[in-house]
């Protein structure tokens, strides 16, 4: 039986990639419940103007990864090598922003980086092959374990969904209330301004002896 590790499989499986320029910052939003692990597997390749293609591996390039939680607090800010993985666990539910940029000045100016990226959340982030080996699980045990993790993640997402919908409802109700109060305020202001206008002009005309 072959023992394939998830990272090793990266070269073989269909990977999603994109290009970034030298000072460009690419950000990804992940909306996740709390206590959820997120793993990002990436590989960076540098454009080689001589061959007009991308070098198969560029060890000198560093990739800066910055992760912000829903309260805009930075929970991960580290420079990683040109190939590898980064992990973080969320402690508050909500929209986390994962930003990638390269701060390397070693490469030719004006060229691009090809970044292969795969972000996996929750039970997809677990390396079951390694887990099976570490805990010496049989296939049946491993399958059941996978199902348990998956169900747990689905359940967490449902709870988070309830919390989001409550926020949504609060916003909608607040908007509805505000529309009413603002309209009332506008009406009052209009009437007040009209009254002030009349009073002011009346006193003005009386002073001018036109009335």
């Amino acid at each position: 039986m072959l023992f394939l590790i998830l990272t090793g499989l990266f070269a073989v499986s269909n990977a999603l990639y994109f290009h970034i320029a030298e000072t460009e910052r690419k950000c990804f939003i992940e909306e996740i419940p709390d206590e959820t692990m997120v793993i990002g597997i990436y590989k960076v390749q540098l454009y080689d103007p001589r061959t007009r293609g991308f070098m198969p591996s560029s060890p000198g390039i560093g990739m800066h990864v910055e992760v912000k939680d829903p309260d805009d607090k930075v929970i991960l800010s580290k420079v990683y090598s040109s190939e590898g993985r980064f992990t973080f666990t969320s402690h508050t539910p909500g929209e986390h922003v994962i930003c990638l940029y390269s701060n390397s000045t070693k490469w030719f100016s004006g060229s691009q980086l090809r970044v292969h990226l795969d972000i996996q959340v929750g039970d997809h982030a677990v390396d079951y092959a390694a887990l099976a080996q570490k805990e010496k699980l049989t296939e049946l045990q491993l399958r059941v374990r996978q199902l348990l993790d998956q169900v747990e993640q689905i359940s967490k997402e449902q709870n988070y969904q309830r919390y989001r919908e409550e926020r949504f409802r609060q916003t909608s109700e607040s908007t509805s209330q505000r529309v009413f109060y603002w309209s009332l305020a506008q009406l009052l202001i209009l009437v007040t301004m009209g009254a002030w206008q009349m009073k002011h002009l009346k006193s003005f005309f009386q002073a001018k002896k036109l009335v």
Partner: protein
Amino acid sequence: MKIFNLNSGRMISLLLILSFSFVIGQEKERELTISVQPGAKECFYIEVHSGQTLDIDYQVIDGGQGELDLDFQLISPSRRLIVSETRKSDGTHRQTMDETGDYEACFDNSFSIYSAKSVFFEILIENDQDESKEIWGEFDIPDMLPEEMQDIAFKGIQDYLTKVRDNLVRTERFQNDLRALEARDRNVAEASFARVNWWSSVFILAVICSSTLQVFLVRSFFDEQSRIHGLWKRGHL
């Protein structure tokens, strides 16, 4: 996996998905949520082999002023335009590809001047790989007990587990789509809230300013010492 549109389309799509009971199992899907700046275009590349099915779903979840649309393009490795959509708020495309190479999926927000758009998309590649690998994950379990595999009871349990897994995978997909829809609706609600506050303040300010201006202009008609009175004299008064 379809992403459903509002209400009427939603029921139909739900029924369609539920009827797909022969869904075997899907390859690892890649889903990302990105923000496309106004005037910018974000492209993603995925390697597909001939014979594989490429399934792309996207949904615009945030659009600044409330315009939730983007241009979408799918380009084959030979630079042929497979799909081109203008100003759509969601889309789903599923095709079996006959070319091997890197396919390009682009989200174009260049028509917009002010609004940054957030788009949630999923890319799924299906092939004729071994079913158990597809649904459980791309790895081989090391050192299994071979005697376990001979038992018929084991095979029965394995089939049940695979069925459960299949249903859970579909549940996850539903959840992801619902999450994207909810995020979109919530963003629209929050944008409305901000808009109500902003424009109401602007209106009140405009009312106060224009009333004061009116009073001063009327005064200037009759007030000889006023600076603007000269303007009226020279003008149309």
